[in-house]
């Protein structure tokens, strides 16, 4: 059997792990933090089971990092807390499969067998191909697509076929370059066709024409966006395209994250599945646990209780993240947890009372946010707390690090009208 890695964030053994043990299928187990710190640990693995309960918001990062390490690793995602939105996020980040829980034993074994077949196929399907056209490699898939170009309409058909899949500005530029070369060849009555071939990494589009002086094409290439990805001889011109899929990260950050419409609590609750809104109960439980721990910290001022508070904030952030609409708020709460985790002893000792007050007010804000949206449904904009919470985090950090360089940060502009 291939190498299997199981990444989890829960100490309890999971069902499919016990299935592996029963069936003597070897696997290595890692926790999420290990992998986030050092993705290289997954080098050489064929299948990765990503089983998350708490760190769901890290899923996109983890998947992307694994795929960057080796795009042939099969990533299988499974979580009891997943919603349709998370599955979509995971799949669009590069996950190969999703196992809905509860999972039964035969399903796991069937899946593992399928992955084995898929891996064998992936490893063996690329072979030296005698009838290749491109000038980059003969190790291509056996399939190809040929476009016979006799007139401009044919060229337009070719262009239309690929333009829909152009995944970046670079691909678009290369396709336009090919179109221009095609137009030039048609004008010069050259008989030619274009062949599309591919391997795991690239697509290759190759012109096959009647011999032309290389200098003409060469001069066009060096002034264009294809200069780093083109090869030519007397009969052919090949251009290679990265096979990267269109990622939302290509959008400018501010456009991607901007939430332009205002959603009221009532609209949100009405349009959100019950399975998501009921996660609010979990938030209420965490709020109660937080209050208990803050009370405890208020009298003990000990590091262990502070750590427990940090973990509860982290859990709160993860649950908020599951509500689909509140990534920013989740991030802000997570920042607080992170700050608590990394704060030095001196800062904590010097500011213990202030920290207690901050915690109480943060929990108050969160309770008000939760009840305003999910209980009373009276909030006119469900995102009202998002930016405010981020600002509060920075404000708190500033307060606690009075002597640090943060004081010189260029924020807090005032403008008089």
């Amino acid at each position, binding site marked *: 059997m291939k190498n299997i890695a199981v990444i989890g964030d829960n100490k309890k053994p999971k069902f499919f792990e016990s299935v592996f043990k029963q069936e003597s299928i070897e696997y290595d187990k890692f926790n999420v933090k290990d992998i986030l710190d050092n993705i290289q640990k997954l080098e050489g693995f064929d299948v990765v089971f990503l089983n998350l309960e708490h760190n769901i918001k890290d899923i996109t990062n983890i998947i992307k990092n694994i795929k960057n390490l080796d795009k042939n690793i099969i990533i299988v995602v499974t979580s009891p807390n997943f919603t349709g939105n998370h599955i979509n996020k995971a799949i669009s980040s590069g996950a190969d499969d999703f196992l809905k829980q509860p999972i039964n034993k035969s399903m796991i074994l069937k899946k593992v067998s399928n992955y084995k077949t898929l891996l064998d196929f992936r490893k063996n399907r690329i072979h030296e191909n005698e009838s290749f056209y491109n000038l980059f490699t003969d190790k291509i898939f056996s399939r190809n697509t040929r476009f016979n170009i006799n007139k401009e309409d044919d060229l337009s058909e070719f262009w239309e076929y690929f333009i829909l899949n152009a995944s970046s500005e670079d691909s678009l530029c290369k396709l336009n370059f090919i179109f221009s070369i095609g137009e030039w060849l048609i004008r010069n009555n050259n008989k030619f066709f274009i062949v599309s071939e591919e391997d795991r990494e690239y697509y290759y589009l190759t012109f096959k024409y009647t011999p032309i002086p290389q200098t003409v094409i060469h001069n066009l290439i060096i002034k264009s966006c294809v200069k780093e990805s083109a090869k030519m001889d007397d009969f052919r011109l090949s251009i290679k395209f990265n096979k990267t899929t269109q990622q939302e990260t290509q959008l400018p950050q501010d456009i991607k994250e901007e939430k332009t419409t205002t959603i009221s609590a009532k609209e949100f609750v009405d349009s959100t599945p019950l399975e998501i809104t009921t996660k609010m109960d979990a938030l209420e439980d965490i709020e109660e646990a937080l209050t208990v721990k803050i009370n405890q910290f208020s009298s003990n001022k000990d590091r262990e209780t502070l750590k427990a508070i940090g973990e509860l904030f982290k859990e709160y952030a993860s649950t908020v993240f599951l509500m689909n609409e509140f990534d920013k708020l989740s991030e802000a709460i997570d920042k607080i947890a992170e700050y608590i985790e990394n704060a030095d002893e001196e800062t904590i000792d010097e500011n213990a009372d202030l920290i207690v007050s901050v915690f109480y007010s943060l929990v108050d804000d969160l309770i008000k946010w939760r009840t305003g949206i999910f209980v009373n449904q009276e909030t*006119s904009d469900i995102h009202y707390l998002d930016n405010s919470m981020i600002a509060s985090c920075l404000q708190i950090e500033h307060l606690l690090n009075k002597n640090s360089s943060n004081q010189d940060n260029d924020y807090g502009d*005032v403008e008089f*009208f």
Partner: protein
Amino acid sequence: MLKKVVFVDDSKTVLMTAELAVKPLVEQQVIDIITYDDATKFLSDVENDFSFDLLITDVNMPNINGLEMAKQIKSNPKFMAKPILALTTENSPELKTIAKEIGLTGWITKPFKPQTLEKAIKRVLRIR
């Protein structure tokens, strides 16, 4: 005489950090601070003869937008001339234009430096 400064913000954390920021002015007995984490409560108090010298308000709040609240305050002849500052994470020119039209005195962006808030209050209330 103590100047009465009112902070309205849905976030208790922001109110707490604002109070800490202006603590020196309170300790010097220059200003008195009153905080509201519920804008509707503040509006109802204002209708019942509550008064202030400076209002500092958030913009994005769950029940009423801070600019809408400022508009309501300014429509009362008693408060027409009272200075109002926005204290918000928002920074869009469109909102600032609306704020100017309503008659706000200024705009402070969050997160804020304590000194910035202190200076802004001193300037608006002409405190030396």
